[in-house]
């Protein structure tokens, strides 16, 4: 009888650790994320898609803005996955590179703007949870993640653009 009880306790312990993690996430992460997401979502609705479209059309003209400003505003304003619809402003030969840049930004954006990719928060939040546990502030990491994200999508856009041009030239 005691042996069975011990097994049952061990079995429950297996899940108790998980339940503690769950509660700490629900109380520690969700309230802030919900309020931030609501605020930014409202702002986006107030600004409206039309005004963003104007900026997008301008940003496609130059290589540097095409792989920095355009993907950044598309991800922040339209979120994952509708951000890729901004590819329609881009010339056909740059569409692959634009998609590559935009999709590579859907995680770096979540440090500062969690609304943009609410379904995939834990790439950042998972790692950030460890930083919080050490008692360190998250702001520095979030800002650096965003900045490096912009640099990386610029590099990625240019490299993919070159590879695409090379491949279509061969064909």
């Amino acid at each position, binding site marked *: 009888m005691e042996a069975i009880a011990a097994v049952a306790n061990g079995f429950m312990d297996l899940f108790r650790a998980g339940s503690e993690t769950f509660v700490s*996430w629900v109380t520690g992460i969700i309230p802030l994320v919900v309020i931030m997401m609501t605020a930014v979502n409202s702002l986006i609705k107030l600004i409206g898609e039309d005004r963003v479209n104007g900026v997008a059309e301008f940003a496609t003209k130059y290589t540097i803005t095409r792989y920095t400003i355009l993907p950044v505003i598309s991800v922040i304003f339209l979120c994952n996955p509708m951000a890729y619809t901004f590819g329609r402003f881009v010339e056909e030969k740059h569409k692959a590179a634009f998609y590559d840049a935009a999709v590579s930004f859907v995680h770096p954006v979540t440090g500062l703007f969690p609304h943009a990719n609410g379904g995939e928060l834990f790439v950042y939040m998972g790692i950030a949870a460890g930083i919080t546990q050490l008692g360190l502030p998250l702001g520095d990491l979030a800002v650096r993640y965003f900045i490096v994200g912009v640099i990386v999508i610029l590099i990625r856009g240019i490299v*993919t653009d070159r590879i695409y041009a090379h491949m279509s030239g061969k064909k």
Partner: protein
Amino acid sequence: MSYKAVTIKAGKGGFGGPLTLVPTDTRNKVVSVTGGGIHPIAAKIAEMTGCPAVDGFSTGVPDNEILVAVVDCGGTARCGVYPKKRIFTVNVLPVGQTGPLARFITEDIYVSAVDASCISLADESAISKAGTPTNPTSAPKTKDQAKAEIAKMNEGKPKNLATRIGIAIGGVVNKFYAAGRETIDITIKTILPFMAFVSMILGIISASGLGDVIANTISPIASTLPGMLIVSFICAIPFISPVLGPGAVIAQVVGTLLGVQIGLGNIPPQYALPALFAIDAQVGCDFIPVGMSLGEAEPETIELGVPAILYSRVITGPIAVLVAYVFSIGLYS
């Protein structure tokens, strides 16, 4: 024509359907968007209808030629993108109305948890009822037209100040309310389920002693630059990256595991930044054809774009880790 109509119902734990697919001369491609290759379910539908099966990952297909899209989406993007375009969608995974496009996933356009036993030849009555999916935006449009007409009628009359202020405030409040509703929707439908599943895994890992194994194997790799470069390179290998991609589930689980190790002090905190890029070199590689078609790319562009992006990641994945490493200097020190 020799095409045959089929009926597809939802499998165990599935959602939506039954869908009756009636191929026509133009709308007759069974597109498999399952990370490369033709999924057995797509092959089965193609065989029964007599339509060609197409690998949507390597070949672009114009939307108006797609009879049905077969996806293996865990719930973020693909399962919603095709329903949004009003293309019949068959998900082989048991996923219901979820993800950012959940509101487009409806029973008349989407069916999930489909296995071979769910597909049967359609009978006459089902065929006569079916047809190509109609675009539902036509109904709301007429509503908009009605609104426009009313607005036109009112145009001549100057509104008084109080009315105009009232309308403006109402509009703003409505936007705030809609924003709140969207946020709660995504919290319940995607954030909470993810938390539940990952905290269960983490709990089992820490209670069962597997945590020590991870601490001894992953932590040393993730606390050196060469180790992270290797991780990013592996994630970016062209035939691995599309498999690792869906829903970023793997990146999220690995991120959480690394977070635990950082919290325990096994990985120095400044490595958080390069690690974020090392585990994410494959981001979006599963979604290239769908993402590019959202950007209105031509099928030929998509065909070239998929390999271009996959090869590019092999170069830019490790570069991203290097850039992040440089930027992590001075972080938390």
